[in-house]
Every structure is written in C-alpha cells, then in structure tokens.
C-alpha cells in the first residue's frame, strides 16, 4: 500500500464517518439527558427522505437539509411525547420510530414518484458540492503535505466540515455551559435537578430537540451529499453503528469523533479491500463489517475499558408526590 492509497482510504473514511458523527452526537444529547435513543436509524432515514424530496423539488440542497432536520425533529418529538410525557418505554418507542420511518419513506416516496420508494436522482445544486479550501490546487504538488491538504482535508462537502466543527462546540456545550451541566445532571440524577427548581421534562425536551436536528443533518448528508437521492432503507443500520460508536466513546463528544472515524475507516476498508490476505489466512470482508459491533460488545462487557452509561438512562422521571 503506497502513500496515495493510504490518503485515499483515509479520505473515504472521513466521508463515511460524517453520517456516523452527526448521528452519534445526536444520540449523545438524548442519552446524556437520560433518554435511550435506538430510533437514530429511523430519524436518519426519514430525514434523508425528506431532504431528497425537498432538494429535488426546489433544486436546493440547503432547503433539503432544512427539510431533513424538520422531519427528524418531528420524529424526535414523537419519541419525546411518548417517553417523557407519557412515560412510555424508551426502547419500544425507538423500535416503533424505526419501523415508522422505513414504512413511511417508501409509502410516500411511492405515492410521489412511483419508483418503488426511490426519489429521482439529484443533479446540480440539489446536491451538495465539494468545497475547495484556499491554496488546495497550488499546494497539490508539494510532496507529503500537498496530497494531505488537497486530497484529505480539502475537497469535501460543507456538511463534512460542519460535522467536525460541531465536535468542539458540543464539547463546550456539554462541559462548559450551564445548559450542559444541567443536561448531564438530568441524565445522572434527575431528582436533584428537580430539587434545584429546573424542569426535568423541559431539559429532556430540549435535549431531544437537539437530537432531532443533528440526526436530521446525518440523514440529509446521506441522501444529498454522500449519495444523489433517496433509496429505500438507505440508512442501512448506520443509526445502530452510531449508537455503538456512542457507547464505544463512553458518551463523550471528542471520543465519539474518534470512534466514528474508526468505524468509518473499517467501512472504507471493507469497501476498498474486501478480503485482506495477511499471509497466514485471509480476513473475510464480513469480519471487517462486524468489527464495530464486536468491539462495542467487548467494551460493554468491560473486559477492555468500561462503558459507564448515564445513571438515569432509560428511566422515566416521575415527580414524587
């Protein structure tokens, strides 16, 4: 494997990890506030559908992004009403949201375009185009630094940069802002937050709003930046990988970026080099594909490192009477 191949592999990993990163940060807000979110997959799917439809109809990828975020927000609010207000089971609600998204996207898509749930191919401004950073072309011929800058760092869609800029922002919100302190407290010990006169329900709602918006960006990226249109079940389990990355990162934003990049790298490797011959035996592509899940189980089992979820996660909050 030569230098350029490594650069190209890493470049692909970045592109593939962006969806995971958006969804993972989305899940982080929900789960840190004490609400389990296995509905990331469904929110991402409905967002990628809404984004593709609006981008196609208006010809603007940015309007598509807004539509995707709105659709995902609606689903997040269904989850919020069910689990925060009506104290429904968070897992059941999440499963239902995933089902609802995989059904609705095809039903509406079929009614709109009669193409078996697919949306028409997006062209021109309906798709996000690459941003070329300053001096990228000029530096391209410089050895080592040139390819790294012009191939790896420059030439991505705007959402890629937004995703990576979100990481320090989320870190700051979570650990340095008043909102973040309350958010973490509400996921660890909601009764104490309630005692301090802050509404647990309000905090959890606000967290789920953020979750919805971020997850919408993940979905919009999928259909208007990574691909050119919506295809049925296009999220293909990425919501669950993002959830795995969140656990792998121990519910911390900067680690989440690392985990998403690692899982993106594994996906890139399985795409580019299906079966890897390491001399003694061949690593099958299925092993590379399953590795994120295996790693997450290992972390969950606590044999290497230890996953410590927010303490109040999964429990509806009932005020004492």
């Amino acid at each position: 494997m030569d230098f350029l191949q490594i650069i190209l592999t890493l470049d692909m990993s970045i592109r593939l990890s962006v969806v995971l990163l958006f969804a993972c940060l989305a899940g982080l807000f929900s789960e840190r506030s004490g609400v389990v979110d296995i509905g990331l997959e469904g929110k991402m799917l409905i967002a990628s559908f809404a984004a593709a439809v609006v981008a196609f109809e208006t010809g603007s990828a940015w309007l598509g992004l807004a539509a995707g975020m709105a659709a995902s927000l609606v689903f997040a609010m269904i989850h919020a009403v069910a689990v925060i207000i009506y104290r429904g089971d968070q897992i059941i609600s999440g499963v239902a949201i995933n089902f609802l998204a995989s059904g609705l996207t095809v039903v509406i898509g079929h009614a709109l375009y009669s193409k078996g749930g697919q949306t028409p191919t997006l062209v021109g401004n309906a798709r996000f185009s690459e941003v070329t950073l300053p001096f990228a072309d000029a530096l391209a011929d410089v050895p080592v630094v040139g390819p790294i800058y012009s191939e790896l760092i420059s030439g991505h869609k705007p959402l890629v940069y937004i995703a990576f800029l979100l990481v320090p922002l989320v870190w700051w919100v979570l650990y340095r802002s008043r909102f973040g302190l309350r958010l973490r407290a509400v996921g660890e010990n909601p009764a104490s937050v309630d005692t301090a006169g802050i509404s647990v329900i309000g905090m959890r709602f606000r967290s789920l709003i953020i979750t919805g918006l971020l997850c919408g960006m993940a979905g919009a990226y999928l259909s208007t930046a990574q691909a050119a249109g919506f295809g049925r079940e296009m999220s293909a389990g990425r919501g669950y990988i993002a959830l795995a990355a969140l656990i792998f990162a121990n519910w911390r934003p900067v680690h989440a970026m690392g985990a998403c990049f690692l899982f993106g790298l594994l996906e890139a490797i399985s795409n580019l080099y299906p079966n890897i011959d390491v001399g003694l035996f061949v690593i099958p592509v299925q092993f590379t594909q399953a590795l994120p899940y295996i790693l997450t189980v290992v972390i969950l089992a606590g044999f290497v490192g230890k996953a410590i979820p927010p303490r109040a996660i999964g429990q509806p909050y009932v005020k004492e009477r």
Partner: protein
Amino acid sequence: MDKMPRWADVVLVPLINLTLAFIAAGLVVLAIGQNPFDMVFFVIKGALGSTTGIGYTLYYATNFIFTGLAFSVAMHARHFNIGAEGQAIAGGVGAAIVLLAVPWPHWTLALPAAILGASVFGAGWAAIPAYLQARRGSHVVITTIMFNFIAAAIIGFLLNGVLKDPNTQNAETRHFGQGAHLPTFEEIFAPFGDGLFKSAPVNVSFFLALIMAFLVWVLIWRTRLGYQIRAFGSSHTASAYAGISAFRVTIYSMLISGALAGMLSLNVVMGEQERLIKEFVEGAGFMGIAVGLMGRNHPFGIVLAAILFGILNQGGFELLWEMPGISREMVLVIQALIIIFTGALVHMTRDPLERFFIRMRKKRA
C-alpha cells in the same frame, strides 16, 4: 391502590389503542390520496379471501408466534431481548447444519433433529448477551442489537464459504433433500378437498408454534422456573430476598427466548425454502416485539396478535395488484403505529381510563 377492572385492562385498553392506531393509519392513507376503506377491504380479501391467502397468513403468523413468544419470555424477566433477528439467523444455521449433515429418510425424524439444531443454536446466540448481562451488567438491549449484526455477518460468511452450494452462483446452501420436506397444509388437507391451501407455504411448523405457545404458558404460569422469572421481572430486589438467583433467571429466560426465536427457521428455512438463504428472517424478529406487546406477553394474546400481523403482512402483498398507488410498506406503517399506540403511548389512554373507573366506583360506593 385502586385498579380498574380486569376486563378493561385486558380487552378495552388494547382495543382503544388498536383503534387509534388504525385511525392514524387511515389518515396516512388519506394523505397519499387513497381510500382507506378500499385498502381494508383488499387487505382482508387478500389475507382471508381464499384458502391460499389464509395459508400465507398462517405462514407469516407462525413466524410471529415464535418471535412473539421469544420476546415475551425474556420480557417476563424484564429483559429486553431485541435480538430475535440474530437468534433466528443462528437457528437457521443450526437447522441447516443438522439437515445437511444427514440424508434424512423422513420428516418425522428430520423435524425433531432440526428443532434441536435450531433451538440449540438460537439459545447459544442468546447465551453470550445473557451471560454478559448476568455477570458483567452489560445491557441485553444493546448487546442483542450488536449480535443481530454480527449474526448477519456470520451467515454471509458461511453462505459464501463452507455452507455454499458449489453448483450455484447464489449465496445459499444446497437443497435439504426430499426426506426433510415438511408436509404443507396443501398436502395435509388434500383428503378434504382439492386445491385447499393451494401453493401456500404454511406447513406443520404452525402446529409446532401452537404447541410452543402452550408450553410457554405452562412454563410461565405453572412451573417453579416460570414463577421465579415473573417474580424477578416484577422486582429484582424482592426476588433476591426470596432467594431467587438473578443469574439463573437471566440465563434461563434468555436461553428459552433465543431457542424460540431460533425455531422460526423451521418454518422458513426447513418448511418453505428447504435450503438456507441469507435474508430469511425479514424483520420477523423485530415484529415479535410488536406481537408480544399486543398480546400482553400472554401466549393466547400472542397467537391472536400474530394472526392479526399475519393478515396485515399477507394482505399487504395483495395491495400490489389491487391498489398500485399504495406501496406494500403501508403495512409496516400500520405495524409501527400499533407499536406506538399499544406500546409507547399506552399510558396516554390507560391512565385517564383508570381514573374514570376509579371515579365511577367511588360514586357507587
């Protein structure tokens, strides 16, 4: 604490929630410019209008009974097994290995062996998440999701490798042979008239599913282990004081759950496909959650819910011909809405209703 009458809890609340789900689904159908009543007509016609339709309905119901039971057994111990998908895949691999290893002379010999293969592999796939939950405290919800994906990768690996039939391009095993053929309803009911259940895939696994439903009822309400599972499910601390081993309950409930999920493969892999293919579970594992919820984790309710979901599933295919404007996935939307209203939003209708009954009783007193 006052409670509402049992009939309201068992019949009225699910009925109201189901109605709400169907109203919501009807609104979706209206929104895409179709007539919901036409849709109901065609779904019922497709699912129950002919013995072939009924045969398909019962075929899907068989899958949902297995996964619904699987979900409910773990749920009685308050363990959220959403790994039925992966456990069914493992069961399929187990059944296929048993059926391929021996040239079976007759299905009466092949079926018990395949039950053993499917349930041992299904239980085995649930064993690791169960152990990690019991000993390391890793939540089964997450580990079983992960195990679904790992199972999908493994079956892909096996069907492109050791288990692959070299005579075909497809990722599948060779045919299990005539000796492993399970009698279909078409063959069983042939003496009663020609063309009954014509070319429907429903087979003797349906009866196996009913037997399992009965056995689960016996297990949960008539055995010591079942009592321990329910006690543990109601209160971890109280059952610990009563000397019930959390480890034992967790492991057993998850193993039984996994074995039941694994048996889905008898219906699909052994009964219908007669060879192992890659994507034979097709979401039935997840649907088991809805079936378990609707059936209130009681085997009788689960069988009824499984038949309802079977009707939806089969009727959905009929839409393809009768109402081309509605995609089959409308069924998925209905099922999702049923989960939302009977599962996630159950307190929305149950709590006001409970208050209503309590007020009525106070007035009378």
